[in-house]
């Protein structure tokens, strides 16, 4: 092995360690008793689930987990369904106002969310949706990025397939459902991952509209737990709560690593 190659490996391995070790350490600390909090190693003879027990005792984290799953799941299904409808209309149909809709999709993506944050909160309060699933879910039901990705994918599907189905009397929705959805699986996976992850990790919006503990999302509750003092500053317990926040994503990532990378890379290029 040449000197240069060796240097490259040293750099990569050092990098990899600095990316993995903090996570391993977090996992280790979350499983160790209070007396070992200052230990920077990974192994101990005293592994225990006491910290996790303490988290469950002090905050309704199970409820927060279910809230997050429900919210991210609903948002993802809605974004997939409605974005594919609009994407199909923009790619394959002709109708009045089509150009205007395309333009407004682009504009809605260009305008930074900070502009609408406060007015949107007012609207949610006006509807009486603060501290409710509606307030957390409804503003995110549609996605401009989802529409653009579907539109691009659908444009590559030949018209001949549609014409044949139309001849047989299929409705536009049947064409979308039976021909376009099955052919758009990669787009569905990409939009699904992006939307679910975005919703799961979102923390600013829940912090604005929700103050009732029963309605909190997982990241919001974990932040409140470590910031608000309920953890008593014991970081074994903080890390246990944090582990519950990252584990679902780490587990899905380890199975679908390739799709995650693809999804996030495509979001950057289009965003």
């Amino acid at each position, binding site marked *: 092995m040449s000197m240069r190659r060796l240097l490259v*490996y040293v750099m990569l391995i050092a990098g990899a360690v600095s990316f993995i070790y903090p996570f391993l350490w977090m996992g280790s600390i979350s499983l160790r008793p209070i007396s070992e909090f200052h230990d*920077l190693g990974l192994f101990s003879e005293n592994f225990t689930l006491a910290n996790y027990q303490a988290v469950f005792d002090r905050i309704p984290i199970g409820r927060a987990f279910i809230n997050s799953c429900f919210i991210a799941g609903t948002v993802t299904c809605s974004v997939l369904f*409605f974005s594919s409808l609009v994407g199909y*209309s923009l790619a394959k149909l002709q109708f009045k106002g*089509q150009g205007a809709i395309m333009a*407004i999709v682009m504009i809605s993506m260009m305008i930074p969310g900070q502009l609408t944050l406060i007015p949107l909160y*007012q609207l949610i309060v006006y509807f009486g949706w603060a501290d409710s699933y509606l307030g957390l879910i409804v503003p995110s039901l549609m996605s401009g990025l989802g529409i653009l990705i579907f539109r691009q994918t659908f444009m590559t599907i030949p018209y001949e397939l549609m014409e044949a189905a139309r001849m047989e009397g299929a*409705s536009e929705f049947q064409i979308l459902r039976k021909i376009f959805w099955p052919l758009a699986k990669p787009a569905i996976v990409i939009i699904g991952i992006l939307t679910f992850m975005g919703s799961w990790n979102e923390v600013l919006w829940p912090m604005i509209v929700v103050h009732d503990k029963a309605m909190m999302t997982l*990241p919001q509750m974990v932040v409140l737990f470590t910031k608000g003092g309920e953890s008593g500053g014991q970081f074994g317990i903080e890390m246990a709560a944090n582990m519950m926040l990252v584990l679902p*994503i780490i587990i899905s990532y380890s199975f679908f690593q390739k799709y995650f990378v693809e999804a996030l890379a495509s979001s950057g290029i289009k965003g």
Partner: protein
Amino acid sequence: MQSEQSNSKAGLVFTSPYVIHLLVFFLYPVGFSLYLVVHRWDLITDPQYVGLRNFKYLMSDHLFWQALTNTLYFLAIHIPLQIIIALALAIALAKPLKGRVFFRATFFLPVVISGAAVTILWQRLYSTEGGLINYVLSLVGIDAVPWLTDPGIAMPAIAIMATWKNLGLYIVFFLAGILAIPQPVYEAAKMEGASSWQEFRYITLPLLKPTMLLVVVLSTLGGFNLFIEPYVMTGGGPLGSTMSVVLYMYKQAFSFQHMGYAATLGFALALIIMVCVFTQKKYLDSERYY
């Protein structure tokens, strides 16, 4: 003819839920923000028309300017750091080597994880009492750094964390950019006797310009979106040194109930972001690397 009619009807039906949602949850808030910026409102009493007073206050509000300067300070550290490290790792990973997939997956891990979780973890890593980072530094003889309590260091500390969080994504962008450069270009350069450095300087770097632009724009957007990082780690302190514009907006709205002024901050920030992104695109499109 009939099919065209049903075609047009389907288009309207398929897009109407989106259009309605957009009207209510995008266009109306945009319009309402224009109303709020010229009003004073505490959520309880009726909004009061104040003309341009919110903007006048904004211009002289040193906390706003400090938050903006903090963000620029963040970007001045974050962007170069990000580009140099991501580019170096991408170049290393572009060569055929063992474990390439493993390394790429590892560097990408923090990208998928919630910013809140990363921040909570790094708060521990930065701790001056038995934090991992100060421990590693002590091994090479560097004294403990008060990462989050020194006003001069707290923002760079957040910038380093943000770099760690996003690096994997930018490695993937650079890697895609490098792999898209046709091999014959390098072969021709080799024939002419170009050194590795010259190859990098005159081929790789200029051809990566679009990727550079993407990285700069995305990092800038990330910088202007800083919220949970200072919220968790420092609460905006010490001495306001990590106060971000979004955190300041959040505090104005929900700690002080200054809804009109918070909307004005959001309006100003949105404007600044659009100007920044537009300028970067223009500047980087015309800049020449060779």
